[in-house]
């Protein structure tokens, strides 16, 4: 099958084109480095099957980070494939640098201009024919419509495309270098490596084992100018191409927005960030999100659940079937489903941040702060997305160039409270702390951040990170379209329902079976019989008794390892909750799972900090390796356990002052901890600025 690769600079719109072309739902965002690995899907163009590849964006073919390495490898390993270079017309000069580098390698390449309409609005117009003539490759304009994009790609595949090297390449004498390199590297990598030698260095060579005695032979070729000569020749060519094909009357620089005066202001930047986050959390967890959740709970548990039970009653279903639907389906799944509006609201706000272009500015604002704790400004992408889902947030760390900063970011992400933990906090907090629940939820989110900061500080002392170069391209501020917002909401709803049906419902059935059958597979009809789940949980319960947790809570935590949503559904099943009232049953002393304020606090703290779900663990393993993941999970359990026990005793001490005062005291404690950490961070200087011994880590390899 023929292959088509989408390549280009970061944020040129490759993934959006890929989605439209293949009817996919690949994650897109208005910041650099959204795509971190090659994604492929088949599609039909002109009645022929093609595999379309969406590659991570890069500025240059010599990779600086892992995701850029993927792109370079794909280009070098597929010399006969067709490469569609997606180019942002507003940033033509820079994008053509990559186009020229690809043409120098002799790959079959076409240019697809993106954001043409947006360019016209700014006063940037590019003549397709003039650009095609000057570059020597076919040039197409990409429309923002699915059908039209497919028709453009049909034209692309039917166009006569030849690998035509640019004229200036003759000046580089690459043939002589390639002749000397032939015995030491593969045919596909010959031109690439010859260019690196022409630039004057062998450190960027690709899979080439060059013996030391060969190096003097290159000197006999009398290659003058080195990198600067190669770059200036290429740039002169690009300048000529742009002069012939582009007309611009744009008055503002690309990426500039009036809001930047506030967002990037050195005094206002951080307060604006905190205000934005506060508004997001207030709307999600406050009145608005709570109101939507109540509606969802009423519709699913009361109305639909009521109909289902009436139907079973009419059909005179056996007791075991009624018990299953009542406890496993309505209580277990329904209790989780009711939080769909709040989860969607949080993910929606995070998406709006991503699409608006604010997130790239945030990386820049937080860069000096993050540098002090051994992270990179780009860590903010992953940490912020971690509030949504750790599984999707961890892969974004691939864009961080420094390995230590990348690993540190990946292991800090699970401390950001993900959206799946929200139902647990809301229900248990609501049941035990009543109207003060918002304070508890806010405190828990702050606690996650406080623990992450503390770990970052400790790790930075133990394994300091050398500062890496950081250049951030500010993406243009955009108002996300209603269609895009709807598409994101729909996509997240589908993912949530998919998870609800295949993970939560599946596991809920297992929990129900374990809770309602003995080891001899006999359905439990009287309280004297002991279920399988009770036996297992009672075995582990003594371990959690210092946190004041009974076997029911322990059981919920065990299932939380599979997916955090299962914590709540387990509690609902174990408490045999019927109808609206998971929260009420939690404080009911007759229930299996019942909490005191102190034990609830310990439970929530442990739930916040203990191991992430299985899918997040697997992403962590691929990001940082098996050994680090294993050590990390062990330490994370110990930390969660220690803080859980501490929360239990702290809660016990201040329980006497009343629940309301207790919540305020706890929030103040977490707030003070964060303030102390911020003070410590401000006292810590960035590694390069303080010691002067280390160099900028241009490239550690």
């Amino acid at each position, binding site marked *: 099958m023929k292959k088509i690769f989408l390549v280009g600079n970061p944020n040129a719109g490759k993934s959006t084109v890929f989605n439209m072309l293949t009817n996919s739902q690949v994650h897109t965002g208005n910041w650099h480095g959204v795509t971190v690995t090659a994604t492929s899907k088949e599609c039909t163009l002109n009645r022929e099957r093609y595999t379309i590849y969406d590659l991570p964006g890069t*500025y*240059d073919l*010599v990779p*600086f980070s892992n995701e850029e390495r993927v792109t370079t490898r794909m280009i070098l390993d597929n010399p006969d494939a067709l490469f569609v270079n997606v180019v942002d017309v507003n*940033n033509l*000069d*820079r994008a053509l*640098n*990559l186009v020229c580098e690809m043409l120098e390698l002799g790959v079959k390449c076409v240019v697809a201009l993106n954001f043409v309409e947006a360019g016209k609005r700014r006063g940037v117009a590019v003549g397709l024919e003039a650009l095609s003539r000057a570059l020597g490759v076919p040039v197409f304009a990409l429309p923002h419509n699915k059908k039209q994009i497919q028709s453009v790609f049909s034209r692309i595949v039917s166009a006569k495309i030849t690998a035509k090297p640019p004229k200036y390449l003759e000046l580089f004498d690459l043939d002589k270098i390639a002749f000397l390199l032939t015995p030491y590297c593969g045919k596909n990598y010959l031109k690439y490596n010859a260019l690196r030698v022409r*630039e*004057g*260095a062998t*450190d*960027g060579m690709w899979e080439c084992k060059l013996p030391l005695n060969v190096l003097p032979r290159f000197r006999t070729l009398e290659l003058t100018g*080195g*990198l*600067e000569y190669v*770059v*200036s020749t290429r*740039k002169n060519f690009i300048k000529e191409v742009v002069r012939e094909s582009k007309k*611009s009357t*744009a008055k503002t*620089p*690309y*990426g*500039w927005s009036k809001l*930047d005066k506030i967002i*990037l202001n*050195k005094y206002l930047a951080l307060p604006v960030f905190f205000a934005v986050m506060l508004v997001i959390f207030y709307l999600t967890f406050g009145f608005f999100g709570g109101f939507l959740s109540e509606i969802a709970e009423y519709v699913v548990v009361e109305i639909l659940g009521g109909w289902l039970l009436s139907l079973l009653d009419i059909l005179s279903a056996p007791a075991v079937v009624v018990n299953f639907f009542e406890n496993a389906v309505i209580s277990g799944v329904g209790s989780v489903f009711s939080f769909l509006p709040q989860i969607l609201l949080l993910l929606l706000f995070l998406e709006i941040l991503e699409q608006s272009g604010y997130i790239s*500015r945030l990386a*820049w604002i937080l*860069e*000096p702060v993050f540098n002090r704790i051994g992270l990179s400004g780009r860590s903010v992408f992953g940490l912020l997305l971690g509030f949504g889902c750790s599984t999707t947030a961890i892969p974004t760390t691939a864009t961080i160039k420094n390995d230590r900063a990348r690993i540190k970011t990946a292991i800090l992400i699970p401390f950001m409270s993900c959206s799946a933990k929200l139902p647990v906090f809301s229900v248990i907090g609501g049941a035990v702390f009543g109207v003060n629940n918002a304070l508890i939820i806010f405190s828990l989110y702050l606690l996650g951040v406080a623990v992450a900061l503390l770990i970052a500080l400790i790790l930075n002392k133990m394994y300091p990170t050398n*500062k890496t*170069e*950081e*250049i*951030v*391209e*500010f993406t243009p501020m955009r108002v996300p379209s209603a269609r895009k917002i709807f598409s994101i909401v729909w996509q997240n709803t589908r993912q949530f329902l998919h998870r609800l049906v295949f993970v939560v419902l599946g596991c809920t059935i297992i929990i129900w079976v374990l809770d309602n059958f003995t080891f001899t597979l006999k359905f439990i009809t009287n309280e004297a019989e002991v279920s399988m789940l009770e036996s297992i949980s009672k075995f582990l319960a003594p371990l959690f008794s210092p946190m004041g947790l009974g076997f029911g809570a322990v059981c919920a935590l065990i299932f939380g390892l599979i997916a955090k949503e299962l914590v709540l559904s387990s509690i609902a099943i174990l408490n045999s909750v019927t109808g609206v009232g998971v929260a009420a049953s939690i404080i009911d002393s007759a229930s299996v799972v019942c909490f005191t304020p102190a034990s609830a606090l310990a439970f929530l703290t442990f739930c916040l900090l203990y191991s992430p779900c299985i899918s997040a663990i697997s992403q962590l393993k691929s990001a940082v390796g098996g050994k680090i993941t294993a050590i990390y999970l062990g330490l994370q359990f110990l930390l969660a356990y220690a803080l859980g026990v501490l929360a239990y005793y702290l809660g016990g001490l201040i329980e006497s002052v009343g629940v309301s005062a207790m919540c305020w005291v706890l929030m103040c404690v977490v707030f003070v901890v964060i303030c102390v950490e911020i003070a410590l961070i401000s006292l810590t200087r960035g590694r*390069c600025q303080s010691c002067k011994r280390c160099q*900028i880590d*241009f*490239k550690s390899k």
Partner: protein
Amino acid sequence: MKLSSVKSGEVRVRSVDAPLYFRRRMYAYGLVLNTKILVRGRGVYIVAGVMLGIDREIADKIVVAR
């Protein structure tokens, strides 16, 4: 003078005082010789018509002239 010492106005790149690997990337970002840089604020620059955030350590390596 170093780019980091420029507080405002327009300058042109004279050289990038860094190892080859790093220079190559700077050039890919558009910071080639004679490129016009408009200093917008602390660490924020407009390079060839595009807004870039360049940190102090890198700005120290870029030699510019008015």
